[in-house]
């Protein structure tokens, strides 16, 4: 183990956040396999027990091939007194994060293999179970919860059916992709899903991870989780690139895309490169008539966690400006190990109007959330 001594960063202690927060990324979990079976269509029980969630990786431990320490990447102190697995006790969840952080709305993204199973029939059944569980045990328990719809996104027909199934329940605000899709996300095979999402008025949420088909950088597989985790930003760069070049937002002009848990400041250099060379590259895409950065600013949003830690605190404000303050939405990623506490996540005190945008205003717009009575605007 290295003997390097690290300085504690001069993170500003701002005290308890006074304004309401919309948390764009919370992770709840199934408490047990029995609960999964309770919600899973019995036709799939035998399949679930024998074959389960099979993905691209030959090892089966969660997050293959890069193991997480600390209980699958969850904070040890998030262990509920009830003894249930971390993130699966709804009461403790509310007690530990929703209440104390004044979370007005929190978007639940179920941590599971949903979306990544090679067998799309099973994937669809599992997604239905996941979403029903989320509705029954979480959304119905507390009106501060909102959720993403787990979808079997590699099979567009089945994914559209799942979106359609939930369209009357407005607490499902988003449909859920993992970032390591089988093809670049702008590709035509995903367009029916975008159409269904646009029709339903929900966003496309793309969250880091997914059992991956391809190596993350164009050059083979990194050895270490520290590499893989860092390169989640690269993963999303590829995806944003694909969305723009394939003209997804010209085709679906009301659609909004939320990049979740992949960082923020990588987006600005990507916009700059695209804009700079657009005049020389665009002959290949004559239908695209706007500058890439314009399209990105209109349609792409980012959740904050894991928040950037620039080398100098004031550089955080620069990074936010480079990306655009309307693009950024706060998230905690509770209960994962790199959870961001809103009282400490920003190295520098944000000016109040900017703080308001990041902590709730941008998210309220994107997910059409009305201020709750009693919330301070």
């Amino acid at each position, binding site marked *: 183990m*290295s003997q*390097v001594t*690290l300085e504690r960063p001069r993170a500003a202690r701002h005290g308890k956040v006074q304004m309401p927060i919309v948390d764009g990324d919370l992770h709840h979990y199934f408490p047990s396999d029995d609960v999964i079976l309770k919600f899973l269509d019995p036709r799939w029980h035998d399949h679930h027990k024998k074959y389960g969630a099979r993905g691209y990786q030959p090892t089966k431990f969660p997050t293959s091939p890069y193991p997480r320490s600390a209980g699958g990447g969850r904070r040890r102190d998030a262990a509920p007194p009830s003894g249930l697995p971390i993130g699966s006790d709804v009461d403790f969840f509310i007690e530990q994060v929703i209440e104390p952080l004044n979370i007005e709305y929190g978007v639940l993204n179920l941590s599971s293999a949903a979306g990544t199973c090679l067998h799309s029939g099973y994937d669809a059944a599992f997604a239905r179970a996941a979403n029903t569980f989320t509705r029954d045990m979480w959304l119905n328990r507390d009106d501060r919860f909102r959720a993403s719809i787990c979808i079997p996104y590699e099979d567009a027909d089945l994914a559209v059916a799942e979106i359609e199934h939930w369209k009357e329940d407005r607490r499902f605000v988003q449909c859920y992709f993992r*970032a390591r899709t*089988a*093809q*670049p996300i*702008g*590709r035509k095979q995903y367009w029916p899903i975008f159409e269904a999402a646009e029709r339903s008025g929900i966003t496309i949420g793309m969250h880091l991870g997914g059992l991956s*088909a*391809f*190596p*993350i*950088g*164009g*050059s*083979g597989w*990194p*050895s*270490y989780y*520290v*590499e893989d985790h*860092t*390169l989640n*930003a*690269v*993963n999303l*760069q*590829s*995806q944003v*690139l*694909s969305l723009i*070049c*394939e003209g997804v937002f010209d085709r679906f002009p009301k659609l909004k895309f939320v990049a979740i848990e992949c*960082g923020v*400041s*990588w987006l*600005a*250099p*990507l916009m*700059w*490169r*695209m*804009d*700079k*060379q657009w005049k020389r*590259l*665009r002959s*290949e*895409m004559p239908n695209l008539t706007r500058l890439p950065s314009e399209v990105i600013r209109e349609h792409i949003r980012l959740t904050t966690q*894991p928040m950037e*830690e*620039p*080398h100098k605190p004031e*550089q955080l404000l*620069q*990074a936010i*400006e*480079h990306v655009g303050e309307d693009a950024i939405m706060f998230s905690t990623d509770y209960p994962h190990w*790199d959870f961001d506490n809103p009282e400490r996540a920003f190295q520098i005190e944000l000016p109040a109007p900017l703080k308001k945008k990041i902590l709730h205003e941008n998210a309220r717009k994107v997910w059409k959330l009305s201020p709750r009575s009693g919330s301070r605007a």
Partner: protein
Amino acid sequence: MSRFKGAIDCDVHIAVPAVQVLYRYLSPYWKQFMIDCNNPSLEPNYYPPKTDLAARPGSRPADGKLPGSDFDLLRKQVLDEPGATGAILSCLYGAQVVRNDGWAAAISGAVNDWMADEWLARDPRFYGSIMVPWQNIEMSVAEIERCASNKRFVQILLLARSELPLGRPFFWPIYEAAQRHNLPIMVHAGGGMGNPNMSVGWNYYYAEDYLSVPQNFQAQLVSLVAEGVFNKFPSLKVVFAESGFTWLPALMWRLDKNWKGLRREVPWLQRRPSDYIKEHVRFTLQPTDEPANKRHMAEILEQIGSDDLLLYSTDYPHWQYDEEGPLPFELPAEAEAKILRGNAERTFTFS
């Protein structure tokens, strides 16, 4: 163009005008192999030749030959007109992206010999890059040993799209030889050893291919640091060419932050990852991918946190800039002098 008088251009491309020019450097076996295969050109498709990006206005020779293949035209446009006093040439001929390693070695050797005879020997301001058949590490080391005594070669050429991440121990014998001969490794955009270009599969458009290049470099940078290449080879320098660099602060911040939480995996790292990057890695200037907002560009340079990292380049003949020129931002005089010349002098050994 008096601003660039005395500059050293660290990324210039020469092109093999026709594959037959290499034949006199091949053994009879490989020469016959090439003839039997109908003289296949190994010109790569990183910049499809008729696209705008491939050649800036005026750089296509009048006789229709490839941009970068005409000695007089290139010398005029790269050295004489701007007043540059040095140019580092690399040839991206695709020996490094074929599968037969013996063939790769033969063509790499031929390209290196051709470069030495037809370019480096003809003007003392030209410097060269040793192409190595990285499909086979022993053959690569042998090629380095063969060429290193010609001091006009100032670096070793690898490509950004490799079969394994460049930090992997598979490549370390190349780095050992590079360090021993005091030659930097240039990682140049290009390559393609079977992995999809992007993290999520193959691009549909050429535009995605070009625009995704920095993504490869970000992965390679993380690999070089995380695998401990700079711990193992403490005097090694790596030059990223055509990678862009405005993405660097975001990447350094993220990697530093993750290292704090995850460093049990990489216990050989004794300092922040960004400290290793600032010490060992350099970036050629073009393409600059700069924001339209000049203040934002100044902020990025400040965020990079060091004047030592950038190496002036035009990326001739690729068309990366217009009237803004190859150095599209203002700098204090001392920092500008470093970019135009000083950083190159501290990175390469020019003789």
